[in-house]
Each structure stands twice: as structure tokens, then as C-alpha cells.
């Protein structure tokens, strides 16, 4: 098919890029110090050029191309495609599976953000205590995030295996369940299980960031509150939470954007099954493209997903860059 971007392609995309890059205006300036080399503009541009060209060729151009593909009927690579207007979008909209995966993505994202926030604060509070081996624990608790997703999939598929897995053996031995649970292949358990496993992976990562924030909370504040007879819970909600809430906001947005885009964890654990009960939008798009080979519909769905996330991307950038401005 023809992959040249037609007249409309990049132009359709420009407003969106412009929007992202101009929206977070406040606090955007990064404080800089200059030496006399740095006042050489040509050298500066030469240095940034390689990465800029690379990203333009592999991200910007393909992104513009996605718009083109979604408005044409690409079936096979190499066969010329024609402009078909909005018909790919119409087809995607009329599919029940698309809407199901939209709803599932919303559930998935909300569950992930809430559990990861609560989990990371909880883990950070545990790690923030005074105990022996502090360095060791704080370094290695992040292990789930260090491991490749394929390792996560093998580890948990083994542990949760209905016949040989240790989880079912343990639960049955404790008398909690009578027969093994099919954690990853029953329609009731698959989505909660995959959600928990994704949280298992990201919670330590965020908890390290929360931990760093916790250490900036002045100790005197806690002591003063304790002197005034505030309970542990009161001290947590009145002293700790307000002082770490800016970082929690960044984490929530981060977790939101990452969860929405997660593909490999779900795919490697369940392939979107059973009966597409774990099919979120990235899985839907991937199977549309590389299982059914409907590239144009996949591109249309990915553009819809992008537009859905755009607001949050802008919000995230705004927050990130504002934090930046305030922090320096």
C-alpha cells in the first residue's frame, strides 16, 4: 500500500501537537546556567539534531500516518489504499466489542490508579520506619518493577496455576477454598487477578517515590501534633497526607497514563481472554491489527484512544512542568 502522507495527513495532526506543546504555559521555564560554549546556537542545534530527527522519523511521521491510515482502507501492506472517509470510525463505533473494551479500560484504569495509590502510600509508610537492613529492603522492594514483563508472566502463571501452583495449594491447605481457583482463565477472576498483578508490579516503584516525599515531611510537625495529643490516624490525615499530596497527584496521573497504555502484562498473562474479559483498548487495537489484519480499523481505534487520553496527557504535562518550576 502507499504510505506517503497525503496532503491532509500531517495537517490534521498539527493542531493536536500544537495543543500539547502550548497548553502548559505556566512554570514551564527551566532555570538554566550558561557557559560561553552554550551561547553558540549552531552547536546547540547540532547536538539536539540527531535525537530530534530520530523521534520525528519514528514517532511524529508514523503518528501523522496513523491519521492517514484510519481514513483509508489498508488491507495488505503493498496494495494501494483509497480514501474512505469516516467509514473505519463508523465500523469501530458500531462494534459492541469496542465499547466493551472501552468500559473495561475505564474499570481497569480506575482500579489500578486507586490500588496503586493506596498501596504505594501503605508500602512507603512501612518502609519509612526505623529497622535493621533498611538500605537492603528499600533497594530490593522495587524488584517487580525491575523484572521484564515476560518474567512476571512466567512467575505468576506458575504460582497461580490451578493444578500445580502454590497459591491454590496454600489456599486449599488453609481451608479457604475447596476446589482450585482458575485465577487467569475464569471469567470472574481474570480481570481482578490481572489488575492485582499489574499493581504488584507498579506499587513498589511508586512507593519509592512516596518514600522520598515522606522523608521531606518535617519531623517537628509530627512531634508537635503528637504533643497536642493527635492520634496516629489524625497525624496521618492532617500532617502526612497534606505534605505528600502534590507528589500523589503526579503519581496518580502517571499511574493513570501508564495503566491505560499497558499491553504486555495483560497480553502475556491472558491474551485478552477468557472470552475477551481482559481486553482493554491496547489489546483490542493489537488484535485488530495483527490478528484480524484490519490495519485501518486498528488505526482508527488507536486515534480514538489517543483523543480520549489527550486531556490527561495535557494535565500530566502541566503538572509535571509546574512541579518543575516550583521546585527549583
Amino acid at each position, binding site marked *: 500500500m502507499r504510505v506517503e502522507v497525503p496532503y491532509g495527513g500531517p495537517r490534521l495532526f498539527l493542531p493536536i501537537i500544537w495543543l*500539547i*506543546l502550548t497548553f502548559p504555559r505556566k512554570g*514551564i*521555564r*527551566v532555570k538554566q546556567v550558561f*557557559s560561553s*560554549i552554550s*551561547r*553558540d*546556537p549552531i552547536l*546547540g542545534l547540532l*547536538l539536539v539534531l*540527531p535525537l530530534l530527527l*530520530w*523521534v520525528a*522519523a519514528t*514517532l511524529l511521521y*508514523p*503518528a501523522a500516518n496513523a491519521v492517514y*491510515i484510519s481514513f483509508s482502507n*489498508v488491507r495488505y*501492506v*503493498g496494495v494501494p489504499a483509497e480514501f474512505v472517509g469516516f467509514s473505519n470510525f463508523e465500523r469501530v463505533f458500531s462494534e459492541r466489542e469496542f465499547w466493551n473494551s472501552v468500559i473495561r479500560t475505564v474499570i481497569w484504569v480506575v482500579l489500578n490508579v486507586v490500588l496503586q495509590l493506596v498501596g504505594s502510600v501503605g508500602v512507603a509508610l*512501612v*518502609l519509612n520506619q526505623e529497622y535493621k537492613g533498611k538500605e537492603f*529492603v528499600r533497594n*530490593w522492594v522495587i*524488584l*517487580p518493577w525491575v*523484572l*521484564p*514483563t*515476560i*518474567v512476571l508472566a*512466567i*512467575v505468576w*502463571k*506458575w*504460582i497461580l496455576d490451578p493444578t500445580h501452583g*502454590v497459591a491454590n495449594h496454600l489456599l486449599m491447605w488453609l481451608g479457604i477454598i475447596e476446589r482450585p481457583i482458575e485465577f487467569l482463565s475464569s471469567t470472574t477472576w481474570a480481570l481482578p487477578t490481572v489488575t492485582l498483578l499489574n499493581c504488584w508490579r507498579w506499587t513498589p516503584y511508586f512507593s*519509592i*517515590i512516596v518514600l522520598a516525599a515522606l522523608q*521531606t515531611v518535617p519531623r517537628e510537625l509530627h512531634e508537635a501534633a503528637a504533643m497536642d495529643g493527635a492520634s496516629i490516624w489524625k497525624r496521618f490525615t492532617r500532617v502526612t497526607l497534606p505534605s505528600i499530596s*502534590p507528589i500523589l497527584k503526579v503519581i496518580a496521573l502517571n499511574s493513570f*497514563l501508564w495503566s491505560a497504555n499497558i*499491553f*504486555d502484562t495483560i*497480553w502475556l498473562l491472558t491474551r485478552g481472554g477468557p472470552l475477551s474479559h481482559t481486553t482493554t483498548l491496547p489489546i483490542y*487495537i*493489537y488484535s485488530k491489527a495483527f490478528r484480524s489484519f484490519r*490495519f485501518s480499523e*486498528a488505526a482508527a481505534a*488507536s*486515534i480514538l484512544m*489517543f483523543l480520549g487520553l489527550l486531556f490527561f*496527557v495535557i494535565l*500530566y504535562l502541566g503538572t*509535571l512542568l509546574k*512541579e518543575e518550576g516550583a*521546585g527549583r
Partner: protein
Amino acid sequence: MKVMRAFFKYLSVAVVLIIFVGPMVWVGINSLKPTSELLGIPTFFPKRVTFEHYRHLFDRVAFLKYYCNSFLVGVVTATVTALAGAFAAYSVFRCKYPGRHFLFKFFISSYVFPKVLVLVPLYIMFSKIGIIDTPLALVAAHVMLIAPFSVWILRAFFQGVPVEIEEAALIDGASKVQTIFKIFIPLAAPGIAAIWINAFLMSWSEYLFASTLVVSDFTKTLPVGMAYFLQEYAIEWGVMMAGSVLIAIPPIIGFAFAGKYFVQGLTAGGVKE
């Protein structure tokens, strides 16, 4: 009371460790058990230690080939990322020219950009120019995924290098390019090493783009190769677990060396000092 408090403190730390580190340790132990033991009632320690699964991995599966492919893609991606990322970060954070703020925003934006959008176009584009199913295609995609984030991490490191040192080198008669390569880069080396390792590990783990851009047995990377065996009905658990241990080793070593720098970079980006 005091004893109770200490007990609960260590109990909570132990629970956290068991939840997050336990599963990998469990798999590490299990990879040493013979198959008969794996399929029976689980015991913590193996009754008999065997390395047969590790041997089978190399005999029956093209594991070594996948390992080499992953390694190649990882090293090239990391090197390109470290070079291009360091240059770009120097330019954006240290140089003064119109549009540098725009470029900085551009890199940050491309880091949070939903990458699924470019999956299909990249696949079609690489098919068309004939580099699909080659390591080159995967390197191209991985650098795009990782490098913008590296620019962001380098910011904290580059701010730690005083400008006065550069000035001194210039006064001593070094050229601008010499100053960057001989004075600045060595001083920022820990940061550049950290992003090299990080890029290698991200490339090592990446699945989505790898599964579409490299598909034949000669070019598959580890995650793609192993994922294929994970979907079979009768999974050979021993072999899979041995494989997962070997895949996990480079990230664990890399993290042991560079983790501290990396976590510093992460937290410095988000937390106000």
C-alpha cells in the same frame, strides 16, 4: 508494649518483602527442582537439586539465539540512546538558542505519548522500506521509546556539573567541542552510564514492539521467544522457570550497580528539594 511494637514493625517489613521479592525467589528455587517434584505437593526447599531444566533450555529451545538477539538489540539501543540522549540533554539544558524550551517540551511530550498509536504505522513503514524483521527495525523503535525519557533523567545529572569547570577549560584554550567531550562528558559519566543501563534494560524487557517488528526465529528477542512457549497447552514449567531466571539476571545485576543512581534521578525529578 515495646516488644510488641518492634514485632509488628518487623512483621510489616517482612510481609512487604515476601509480597514483592518472594515470588521471584520461589521461581528461582523451583527452577532447580526436578519435574516430578514440581508436579507434586510443593515443598519450599528442593529434595533434589538438578540443573536439567537449564540444560534443556539450551538443547531444545533456541534460547541462546534469542539471548544473543536481545543482547545485540539492547547494546545498540543503549549506545544510541546514551549518545543521542546526552547530546540532546546538553543542548536543551545547557545551550542558549531560540526554541530550546519548545524542544524540551517536545521530548517530554513524546515520552507520555500513547505509543499504541504508532504501532501499525511503524509496522507498515518498516515493511515498506524492507527492514521489518531485522534488529535494525527494533532498535529504531526502542530508541524512540526510551531516548526522550533519558533526556528527562539526565537533567538532574547535568545540573550537578558546575559551569565554571567548562569556563576554565575554555580559558585554558580548549575548543568548544573538546570541552564537551573531554571535560563535560567525563564529569557527567555516572548519569550517562545510568541511562545506558536503563536503556539496555528497557529494551531487554520490551514486548509490544518486539512482537510485531521481529517475528522469525532468527531475529526474535527473548520476551517474544519465551512468550511463544507460554501459550502452549502443556507448558514445560521447569524449562520456563529456568528461562525466566536467566532473563531476570541482567536486570538484577544492572539494577544492583545502577539502581541507586536511577532511583535518585527518578525522585529528583518529582520531589521538591
